[in-house]
């Protein structure tokens, strides 16, 4: 048994302050969400006073529950729709962009690369306002609504797959593709049969990340929304928060949270499987999130 003083001054002690800060941060970060999820099961209408457990806001209440309220359905479907369409367009576009820029020397690609990185850090409201102006003043076939929202979202998200794929290509290096071409493959075939399969983990990771980011987007989709059927969950929460929110909103957000968690978990497991035995890819969550 050591004395408390010795224990405190132990030179091999774990980093207590850092540990405390980390746990404090995690608590601060996640507890409000936990509370929101818990209150989605509240029996009464309050979102601050616990009135008993019930699932009425999910499917019990015949008027206002998520299952019965058409407005909440539409919001959920719109969110998922936007997520799917945007991801389907963004990932191929971004991947091709990254591969193309990587092997194209010159000022134009350097400029395009810079443009892409700038779109990564731009405040979203600037892009939203400029696209709003475009859609409302130019006679494009696209009107406010899903079309305009997809346009904005793809522009905003295209940097994600581009950056992830470029990082992965930098890690892989050029030797495999060059070896393939030395063995007689055309550049296109080498790309298709050697490089792309090696990039698959990064492509997959960026798909999941773009999807998760899009279903949470707020500024762009709000400015570019048309009627209320094109308002996704984030806009619904914002609108209703300034009126009279019920726990049905918590229920909606919880459902979306579980959908996102499911997507991420499945994605991560598939990613792990894909990079099994591949030691150029970092295994682990960090690589999945593109930060390896």
């Amino acid at each position, binding site marked *: 048994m050591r004395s408390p003083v010795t224990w405190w001054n132990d030179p091999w002690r774990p980093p207590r302050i850092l540990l405390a800060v980390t746990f404090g941060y995690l608590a601060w970060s996640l507890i409000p969400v936990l509370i929101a999820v818990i209150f989605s099961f509240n029996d009464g209408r309050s979102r601050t006073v616990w009135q008993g457990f019930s699932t009425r806001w999910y499917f019990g209440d015949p008027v206002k529950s998520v299952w019965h309220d058409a407005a909440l359905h539409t919001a959920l479907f719109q969110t998922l729709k936007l997520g799917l369409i945007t991801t389907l367009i963004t990932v191929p576009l971004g991947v091709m*962009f990254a591969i*193309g820029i990587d092997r194209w020397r010159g000022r134009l*690609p350097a400029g395009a690369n810079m443009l892409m990185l*700038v779109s990564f850090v731009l405040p979203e409201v600037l892009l939203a*306002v400029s696209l709003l102006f475009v859609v409302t003043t130019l006679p494009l076939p696209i009107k406010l609504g899903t079309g305009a929202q997809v346009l904005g979202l793809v522009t905003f998200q295209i940097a994600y797959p581009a950056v992830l794929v470029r990082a992965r290509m930098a890690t892989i290096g050029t030797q495999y593709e060059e070896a393939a071409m030395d063995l007689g493959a055309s550049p296109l075939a080498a*790309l298709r049969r050697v490089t792309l399969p090696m990039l698959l983990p990064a492509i997959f990771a960026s798909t999941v990340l773009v999807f998760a980011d899009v279903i949470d987007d707020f500024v762009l989709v709000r400015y570019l929304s048309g009627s209320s059927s094109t308002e996704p969950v984030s806009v619904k929460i914002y609108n209703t928060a300034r009126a009279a929110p019920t726990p049905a909103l918590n229920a909606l*957000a919880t459902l979306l949270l579980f959908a*996102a968690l499911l997507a991420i978990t499945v994605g991560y497991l598939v990613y792990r499987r894909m990079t099994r035995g591949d030691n150029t890819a970092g295994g682990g969550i960090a690589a999945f*999130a593109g930060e390896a």
Partner: protein
Amino acid sequence: MTLTEVAAQAKPQSTRARGSALGPVLAAPGVIWLLLFFLGPLYVVLAIVFGRTDPIFRTAVPVWNPLQWNPSQFNYVLSRIVGSQGIFGPALLRTALYVLVAGLLCLLLAFPVAYYTARLSGRWKGLLLALLIAPFWISYMMRMLAWVNLLQDDGLVNRLFSMGGIFDVRVHWLTGQPVVVVLGLVYGYVAYMILPLYAGLDRLPQSTLEAARDLGASRFASFWRVTLPMCRPTIVAAVLLTCLPMLGDYFTSDMLSASPKTAMVGNLINDSVQSPGQTGQAGALVMLVLLVAVLPMFYYVRVTSRGDTAS
């Protein structure tokens, strides 16, 4: 010079072998998309800012020919920044202040967390990282709404401070308190800072740090004089990545304090865009924010691309 370095320098640029035609073809769709939907709209913004307003509805009418541009709306906004009619000045200053303070707080919070996770968490690394990434996939609006509930007069925060009735704490958190808005910004954006910091700290060579300790530096000294300088580029990139998007934030102030006292430049833009006669001014504000943010943005690009090639 080692053999490998010589060999590397002697290798010719093998553009021929890598299919120089393939590059432009693949990149073209992406480049065209960015030009059309990223750069293009900026020109439309210019056309509206320097355009005119419909006399009855006072909606904005874009003018496409630069020779016919009318700078009155832009001048109007510029003239309202400082001076006796400086109605926008306080909001711009306030935005800069909030973003700076929030950025600093984010850094003070994110760095220890990232450091611990990257270097000291051992076998809990994966779990910790998953928990740290979790906020990305929880609806941002939902998190803010959760805080609105907690901060209400009869909410949990006040109840906690009251400590079961010992004190009677009824602070009005949600009525225009700058502290609450800044903390709200920190809450919303700190997750964006943790990941890049984690990545950068993860890459630091352990050997160098151990060498510093072996040579007799205390924990603090080795941190201050070895670790910190080594991860300076990472810190800069992370701070920029977090603070630049904060410049356009308006919904944090909207939800946590519906008061003009905490209006940021994002609120100015949001209020004016669909207000008759003020759309052009909203566009001018957009341009202003863009101009202010452009230098840091290019700096960010430089820092990250240098990081790319310095692998």
